[in-house]
């Protein structure tokens, strides 16, 4: 990427300069190296790797995926190889193809687990940020349970804050009554940033079998359809907190990135769109300068929260 483009697209995310604000979202980009077979993933700002837990997890039974209007449901259930394998196998494979700091997405089922996995990944040189996922809608007794109540969100963020040195970004759920309250609690607990929105809890029923389409009954709704909900929540949260907001939810094109940043996002994650178009993030980054020209935007930095 040329210096001029870097100057136009670059942003600072919780103390780390990134070439552009585009970040493939956790769960849609694996541990990165498979996309590196398709294009040079160093064009990305960074990416958030697959949500990692202490132990290896198979996740939920299949079917885990269902089509929806302008989107999809998933109930993968945090399938991952466990933190040991991530450190010893996935990160070394990633190192061969990605020379930027990566965002480590951490999930868990207990306070201890969040603390242990976060501190383990915090020590890895390749990790730039910890993205603490307290919002997975597809596992029971964990994930979202921590992120839907301000008190428990604050407890887990404080505990993790005490053990990690790197910037801590907390990813939370839209499946709450008052997202601003949670955001404020997370900020007060010491988070360096927040990322939102995780998927919206949804469900579909198979008309032939007259039973839920997903083996897990419910799943998380993502894709273009949720974009307006995400813009609204990013707008509300970024007005209420001082720390950077990473906006995500239904982002599909360069115009969506600009809209999300005007709403208050410092950086933007792209999720489901990667699954329809494996080149989505590369294409969005390539399209940004021209779309910025069209709307008389010189640098992306200057438009963050521009709609406030």
């Amino acid at each position: 990427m040329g210096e001029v483009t870097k100057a136009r697209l670059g942003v600072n995310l919780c103390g780390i300069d990134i070439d552009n604000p585009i970040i493939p979202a956790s769960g849609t980009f694996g541990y990165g190296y498979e996309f590196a077979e398709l294009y040079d993933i160093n064009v990305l700002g960074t990416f958030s790797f697959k949500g990692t837990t202490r132990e290896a997890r198979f996740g939920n039974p299949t079917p885990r995926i269902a089509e929806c209007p302008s989107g999809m449901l998933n109930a993968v259930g945090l399938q991952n190889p466990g933190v040991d394998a991530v450190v010893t196998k996935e990160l070394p494979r990633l190192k061969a193809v990605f020379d930027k700091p990566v965002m480590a997405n951490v999930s868990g089922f207990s306070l201890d687990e969040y603390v242990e996995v976060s501190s383990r990944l915090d020590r890895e040189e390749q990790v730039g940020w910890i993205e603490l996922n307290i919002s997975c809608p597809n596992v029971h007794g964990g994930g979202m349970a921590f992120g839907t109540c301000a008190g428990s969100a604050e407890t887990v963020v404080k505990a993790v804050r005490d053990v990690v040195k790197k910037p801590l970004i907390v990813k939370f759920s839209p499946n709450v009554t008052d997202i601003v309250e949670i955001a404020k609690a997370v900020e007060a607990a010491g988070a360096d940033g927040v990322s939102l929105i995780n998927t919206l809890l949804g469900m579909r029923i198979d008309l032939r079998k007259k039973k839920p389409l997903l083996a897990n009954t419910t799943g998380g709704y993502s894709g273009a359809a949720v974009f307006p909900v995400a813009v609204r929540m990013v707008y509300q949260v970024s007005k209420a907190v001082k720390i950077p907001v990473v906006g995500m939810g239904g982002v599909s094109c360069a115009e969506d990135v600009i809209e999300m940043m005007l709403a208050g996002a410092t950086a933007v994650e792209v999720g489901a769109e990667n699954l329809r178009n494996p080149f989505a993030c590369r294409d969005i980054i390539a399209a940004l300068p021209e779309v910025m020209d069209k709307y008389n935007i010189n640098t992306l930095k200057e438009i963050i929260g521009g709609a406030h």
Partner: protein
Amino acid sequence: MKQSFFTVKDNIALTHDIMKMTLLGDTGDITSPGQFVNILLDGMYLRRPISVNDAEEDTLTLIYKIVGKGTEKMSKMGAGEELDILTGLGNGYDTKKSGGRPLLIGGGVGVPPLYMLAKQLIGEGKDVTVILGFRSARDVFYKDEFEALGAKVCVTTEDGSAGIKGFVTNAFDFAGDYTYTYCCGPEPMLRAVYNASKTSGQYSFEERMGCGFGACMGCSCKTLYGNKRICKDGPVLEKEEIVWEK
């Protein structure tokens, strides 16, 4: 894997609910029989995975069943229309393990990918026997095409209205002394063939997919050698690694 645009050459009905679409485009990434493509359709969010029936230099043939909104939309497309397709997905069948007399067993929409497999095996000088299972006579397709390749073909139907009455496993006698088993079809059929087959083999599985290229973990399954993704590490699994769960 490659993303490219294909142009529909024709799109014809083979039975009351089975269609055959021939497309022109770059098939360079299709390297094995048993692989699939993933098609983006107007108005559908996720791509539709369809097995490759045949791939030649610039021609891709897909045979698909109209089962939902996506395939219904495909069935209405005509010559000249364009489709955004990811090609070269999945591992496909390995013909090296077949021995001299491979047995190929397909059921319903599991039949189409066996055509390219039979063609390749026959091209390698092997003596190919095919058992094709359908519900009823009106569902039968591609018997003549397999015979034209030079395969010995046996058809079974559940109601006995064509070929041998019953399931594909009722036709094992027809296969004689086979060296290897290739199978594609619904999971109950795969399991029945797995139990009835006396040889090693390769079985192609189906699962609802998100991306089709290994990113989303939507179609994972357990095997004796760890978790695999049907779309990327499959859809073809070796008999020796299969774990039956459901």
